[in-house]
């Protein structure tokens, strides 16, 4: 038997997991009725699943140590695809065509969740500035999102301002809030920053929940207008299509701006800041300023996404801005591969669309989603796509740059 030791180990692990899950999986007590239900069949389930998974895992480990792949082969297929213009150009055209045709072939629901996914692409790319580029771990990104959404809802409610006025206004307000939060906390190192941003986001959410006079409390704000299109009346489905294209356009803008930022003096400064804060300062980079711009720019996109979110759902309340939301956006950034635009886009689509399509699985979908997050991290800890650095080619005397 080739895999005898692995099988034995898997059996041990399966036994351990059966024991471990015994009280929760097998015994169901109802302290209200004083009934105990013994579900012995579950043992078989846990055992089989644990055995198969741990066996596969060990085979995987075995293969990895036995035949380490050459470094070039470590680049995933997709990434090789990206590196070669002959391959990625047709691919881009295909994606563009798909994006164009999609709303006319898909159902209203499909368009709707795709729009949601597009909003999360914006959020992911925005947070990518903070976490992926500048290395500032922000666990309260949802606060900026909330600022955007509430700016639109409230300013529209009180002053009747329109979507197109409030889109930049929401973005600016979020940026301002970003600076406001950023100032006191920039002295803090990594994880302290994380918990403080989390705290700020929670405070904001609790204030929105309690301060009825300002925010209408937990019952939220309804009937937020959808964006207008030169005053044309749109049906629900038409406005969903309109919203979809609007989001596509804004996503393209986001990608463009972030790509430019990433490959600029500022973007380099952020990456340097992430790599080594002290050396970065010694290179003449103003740490405070670099961090604040990263915070403010990240917040700007969240603010914009917030406005779009409010306009899309037409209803907001504080329940949409919980810590779990921040965690999901962070998961998008990390899963995508920190600092990689393409990675973030793929991850956003996966994280938002997957649970939707997993609905087939009913109650098990969040369970599997959690497992998928762990699995993805274990198999690809650096995310789907490792951002590659730009290479330059020089002739020894004539310096020619090629990107």
């Amino acid at each position, binding site marked *: 038997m080739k895999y005898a030791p692995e099988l034995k180990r898997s059996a041990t692990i399966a036994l351990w997991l059966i024991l*471990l899950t015994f009280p929760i999986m097998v015994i169901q007590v109802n302290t*209200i009725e004083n009934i105990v239900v013994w579900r012995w069949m579950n043992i078989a389930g846990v055992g089989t699943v644990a055995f198969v998974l741990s066996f596969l895992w060990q085979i995987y480990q075995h293969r990895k140590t036995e035949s380490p792949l050459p470094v070039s082969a470590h680049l995933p297929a997709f990434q090789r695809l990206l590196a070669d213009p002959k391959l990625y150009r047709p691919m881009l055209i295909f994606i563009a065509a798909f994006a164009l045709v999609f709303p006319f072939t898909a159902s209203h629901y499909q368009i709707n969740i795709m729009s949601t996914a597009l909003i999360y692409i914006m959020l992911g790319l925005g947070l990518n500035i903070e976490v992926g580029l500048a290395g500032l771990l922000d666990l309260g990104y949802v606060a900026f999102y909330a600022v955007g959404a509430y700016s639109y809802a409230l300013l529209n409610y009180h002053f009747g301002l329109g979507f197109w006025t409030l889109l930049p206004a929401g973005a600016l307000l979020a940026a301002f809030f970003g600076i406001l939060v950023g100032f006191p906390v920039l002295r803090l190192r990594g*994880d302290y920053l994380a*918990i403080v941003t989390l705290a700020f986001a*929670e405070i904001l959410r609790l204030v929105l929940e309690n301060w009825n006079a300002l925010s209408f409390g937990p019952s939220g704000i309804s009937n937020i207008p959808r964006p207008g299109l030169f005053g044309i009346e749109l049906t629900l489905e038409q406005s969903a299509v309109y919203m979809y294209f609007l989001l596509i356009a804004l996503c393209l803008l986001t990608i463009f701006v972030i790509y430019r930022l990433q490959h600029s003096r500022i973007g380099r400064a952020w990456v340097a800041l992430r790599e080594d804060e002290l050396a970065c300062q010694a290179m003449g980079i103003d740490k405070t300023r670099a961090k604040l711009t990263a915070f403010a720019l990240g917040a700007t996109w969240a603010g914009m996404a917030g406005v779009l979110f409010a306009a899309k759902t037409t209803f907001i309340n504080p329940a949409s801005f919980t810590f779990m939301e921040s965690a999901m956006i962070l998961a998008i950034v990390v899963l995508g591969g920190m600092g990689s635009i393409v990675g973030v886009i793929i991850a956003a689509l996966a994280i938002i669309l997957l649970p939707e399509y997993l609905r087939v699985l009913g109650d098990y979908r969040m369970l599997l989603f959690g497992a998928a997050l762990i699995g993805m991290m274990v198999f690809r800890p650096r995310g789907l796509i490792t951002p590659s650095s730009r290479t330059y080619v020089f002739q020894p005397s004539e310096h020619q740059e090629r990107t």
Partner: protein
Amino acid sequence: MNYFWDLFLGGLTRGSIYALIALGYTMVYGILQLINFAHGEIYMIAAFTALIVASILTMQGLTGFSVLILAGVIAILYAAAYGFTVEKIAYKPLRQASRLSPLISAIGMSIFLQNYVMLAQTSDFLPFPNLLPQSEFLDSISAWIGPSDFIIIVTSSVVMIALSLLLKFTKMGRAMRATAQDREMAMLTGVSVNRIISRTFIIGSALAAIGGLLIASHVGRINFYIGFNAGIKAFTAAVLGGIGSIPGAMLGGLVLGLAESFGTGYISSDYESVFAFTILILILILKPDGILGRSSQQKV
């Protein structure tokens, strides 16, 4: 003045529980620099296990102290086993990865465990039997301090003192502290880092289980979601006290509990959590490494 005393005790009770859970966060953080978001779920699983064991025992006709001890011990063992397993599955393969990957894995684990308990047990709140012992002594002081408050404060103090002694005077404790200081150095001196990490998770989870047991008995109800909020608060407490610092986690928990209690009592419970988070922000702005955190003057 009486009102003040009541709020103080309430805060102390809640703070002790925060501190017990915060210890798990701070120990894991000290060694792995990982915010173990699944830690709160361990606390929840411990409470469920205790509930299951206690119910079965009660139905077998056992009562009182023996139920408490048996349910408690089994819950603590199980929590420790869960902590150990969670580390092996979700964090150990990620030892070499960037610091954010285990964080996401931890969030995934937290979602998984919540749904696991919800699906295998129930989404409803279940009443939790009051396992805490009753005695004449407790009755006699009940005007002055609630019996369960008294037990929670005393138990958690004893546990925390025991932990401090363990870390200070045993070989394992020294190895753990050494690993927290400098993992590579500890490895060079022959400490098995993997074993230390496992033990850290086991001890941290056991502490959380004790917290879970105490609070479930005190509040009298549990569901699959109780770990999440407690986890966030406990993590806040750990940071407040200076993450990585054991006395810091204890102090942080108490400060947080008291802040919430007094905030509710003298201002408004609408903003209960806001008080906790505001204190956190203020303290970190004044002392960026937490109350008892080691100052981390960068070495150049």
